[in-house]
């Protein structure tokens, strides 16, 4: 990697990153609250993508089941807030557990639940590799999806509506720009953390295991453990994004767990550039922008979306950032 | 015009240029040794000849035909057979399937190849992935012979082979050359072996031809200067 190119990538990353708050601020000035909401959506979906990118980009673990974690985060929010909203306890025996509508607490629960789910799913799935891994993660995702649809306690396929957004100490989360600020701050923190992670010894070993597991073993490291940990971190971050997404919509339903969702998160990552720290940000921004702009054009706007995506894959190799930063893709 | 000729070839992998002016020519039925230290461009030259690498400057002629626009399979059909560096057997195919995958009719058939390498007959229905390194090497050579080429490109074809087998292969190639008039371009590290089969030699340094002549003229001094022996 040449130094000037690195410089260019950094520049693009900075520009991309600044674009989000700038858009939000601009919308605030123009009194276009919906644009702020859209920007918030980009930030949250980017966060989900950043989570997936740890497994996908760094670890080479192509998970088509990340909607499971996204949805688990969503339901963590939905269930806690639902109980708080209806003043019913979450459980009474063996000890009393109340619902909650405090965002930080919900996040904590989402992250822990996501991590545990990723641990369980990962521990089993990582026995396979390649396409089989894609499919087994899909299988676990679909199991959760069908479970959520037919489990009546929390709305089944109808999902759960939460009428007010959960609270964050000192902020009014219902004001779009304030909620945006929260989501953006979370994204920024996670990006910083993941950036460090990628450059750390763990990151080097993990990416090494992606390229050549045999090699990592012969230097005395266990690819399985490296990957499992990556998968857990990845699931936890995606779950956090799920909790935020549920809060954005004040709604959660099994569609958050469907394979379409997994596919969409993956598409943000690929579109932006696999393994690029800021790739999911670029990918989510472009996708949401297209969806929003094209959606108004015609009943058949999916055709245009399809064509544009196709052009990106065929001609923008290495995703958006890869193309802009001008470095050829790593794998050939 | 020669059977095979390269003039002023330059070629790159993406942004990295590997060849900076390779000249080489070979007559029908002749054997040329391509030599040079590691990373000097021997394999890249071989790839340019069989079109796996496109050159940006210079000309490649094979049997009087400009190869510039030909895709690899056309080059092969024109009569080139490749034993690539690193063997590249098809791991998911059996030995037999590897051999017949791209076979063309001619002198070399399954019986003749397994006559040369009896081990391959013993392993006929085993997957190539489970062969030993040397067995894979035999398979790669056999596979190229099965296409009955007029020009055989051998890139480190004896790497990892036991000395006896190596000697057998060179012996077979010598017979081949005299009986069928097949031309050979050989990359190999053993100067001693090359001296037995080759007629001429070309030495590369930093991607360019720096020495060419009869194999007998590769004196210890030349070898020391260019090959570090």
């Amino acid at each position, binding site marked *: 990697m040449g130094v000037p190119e690195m410089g260019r990538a950094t520049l693009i990353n900075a520009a991309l990153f600044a674009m989000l708050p700038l858009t939000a601020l601009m919308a605030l000035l123009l009194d276009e609250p919906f644009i702020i909401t859209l920007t918030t959506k980009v930030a949250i979906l980017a966060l989900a993508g950043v989570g997936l990118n740890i497994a996908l980009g760094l670890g080479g673990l192509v998970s088509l089941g990340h909607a499971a974690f996204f949805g688990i985060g969503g339901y963590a929010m939905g269930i806690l807030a639902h109980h708080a909203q209806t003043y019913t306890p979450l459980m009474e025996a063996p000890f009393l557990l109340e619902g909650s509508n405090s965002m930080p607490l919900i996040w904590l629960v989402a992250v822990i639940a996501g991590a545990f789910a990723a641990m369980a799913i990962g521990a089993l799935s990582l026995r396979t590799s390649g396409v089989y891994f894609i499919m087994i993660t899909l299988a676990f995702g679909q199991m959760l999806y069908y479970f959520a649809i037919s489990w009546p306690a929390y709305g089944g396929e109808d999902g759960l509506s939460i009428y007010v957004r959960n609270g964050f100490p000192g902020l009014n989360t219902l004001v779009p720009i304030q909620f945006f600020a929260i989501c953006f701050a979370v994204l920024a923190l996670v990006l910083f*953390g993941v950036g*460090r*992670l990628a*450059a*750390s*010894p*763990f990151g*080097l*070993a993990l*990416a*090494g295991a992606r*390229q*050549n597991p*045999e*090699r*990592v*073993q*012969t*230097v*005395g*490291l*266990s690819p399985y453990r*490296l990957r499992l940990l990556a998968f857990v971190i990845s699931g936890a971050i995606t779950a956090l994004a799920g909790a935020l997404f549920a809060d954005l919509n004040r709604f959660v339903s099994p569609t958050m767990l469907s394979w379409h969702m997994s596919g969409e998160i993956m598409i943000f990552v690929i579109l932006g550039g696999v393994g690029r720290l800021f790739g999911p940000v670029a990918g989510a921004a472009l996708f949401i922008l297209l969806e929003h702009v094209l959606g108004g054009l015609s009943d058949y706007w999916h055709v245009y979306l399809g064509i544009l995506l196709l052009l990106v894959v065929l001609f923008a190799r290495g995703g958006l950032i890869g193309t802009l930063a001008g470095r050829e893709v*790593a*794998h*050939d | 015009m020669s059977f095979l000729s390269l003039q002023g070839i330059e070629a790159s*992998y993406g942004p*990295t240029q590997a060849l900076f002016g390779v000249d080489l020519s070979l007559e029908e039925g002749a054997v040329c040794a391509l030599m*040079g*230290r*590691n*990373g*000097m461009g021997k*394999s890249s030259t071989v790839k340019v000849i069989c079109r796996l690498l496109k050159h940006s400057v210079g000309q490649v002629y094979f049997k009087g035909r400009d190869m510039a626009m030909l895709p690899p399979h056309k080059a092969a059909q024109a009569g080139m057979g490749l034993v690539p*560096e*690193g063997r590249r057997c098809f791991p998911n195919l059996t030995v037999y399937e590897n051999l017949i995958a791209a076979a063309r009719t001619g002198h070399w058939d399954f019986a003749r190849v397994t006559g040369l390498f009896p*081990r391959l007959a013993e392993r006929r229905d085993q997957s190539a992935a*489970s*062969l*030993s*390194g*040397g*067995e894979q*090497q*035999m398979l790669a050579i056999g596979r190229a012979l099965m296409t009955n080429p007029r020009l055989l490109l051998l890139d480190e074809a004896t*790497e*990892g*082979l*036991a*000395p*006896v*087998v*190596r*000697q057998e292969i060179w012996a077979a190639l010598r017979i081949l050359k005299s009986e069928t008039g097949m031309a050979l371009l050989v990359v190999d*590290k053993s*100067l001693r072996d090359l001296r037995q089969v080759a007629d001429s030699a070309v030495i590369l340094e930093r991607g360019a031809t720096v020495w060419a002549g009869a194999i007998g003229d590769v004196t210890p001094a030349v*070898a020391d200067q260019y*090959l*570090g*022996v």
Partner: protein
Amino acid sequence: MTETLLDIKGLRKSFGALVATDDVSLTLNPGEIHALIGPNGAGKSTLIKQVAGGLAPDAGQVWFAGRDVTGFNTAARARAGLGRTFQISSLAMEYTVLQNAVLGALGARGTVWRFFRPVMQDAELRGVAEAALERVGLMDHRDKRTAELSHGQRRLLEVAVALTLKPRVFLMDEPMAGLGAGGSKRLTGFLDGLRSEAPILLVEHDMDAVFALADRISVLVYGKVIATGTASEIKANRDVREAYLGQEEAS
């Protein structure tokens, strides 16, 4: 003689009807190079895999530094001090040469569970890695991506990574393969010096190197050790000449 470092006892491995390793026992002592030669398909790589941990033997044990490591997996054996090179290069192809070496150094350090310190700025790891690259002569290429190396250069990197592990024993599967004549000569010199750091179990078809280096040579044919001895003993062995060396090598 000092105590044996690596002790292979009665290893046996078959693939279906094929007995690839047939009751093989070998030892490796400190300071020596023990070469393993034999025809293609004799079972040399299979043996190395069983010692390094990629393949479980059907019977027999591998003792290393007084411990039975037969039940260890590859990673555990590497941590115990078995450093291996592959017959066919096995490297992280997208990494730079230096990153590959740092990965080795990291493995040798044992702990990767650090999440926030940039690894390429870790002076200690870099030091180990660069020293190893220097020794095999790849320092000039350290920022090249491994995929851009020529075949021979990759072989050298393979050796360099093994060096970073600071192993107590080297298991080398055809390190000379793919090196030019000059390269082989240099590597031969290098390995000669290396044996004082850690003994080497060396599989090689390059007889010049084997005869120049080996203190002892074992010959494997059809999975069985048919002879063990010094270079001159082996050269003089008729069976070995017939099965393996052929005419000129022995002359």
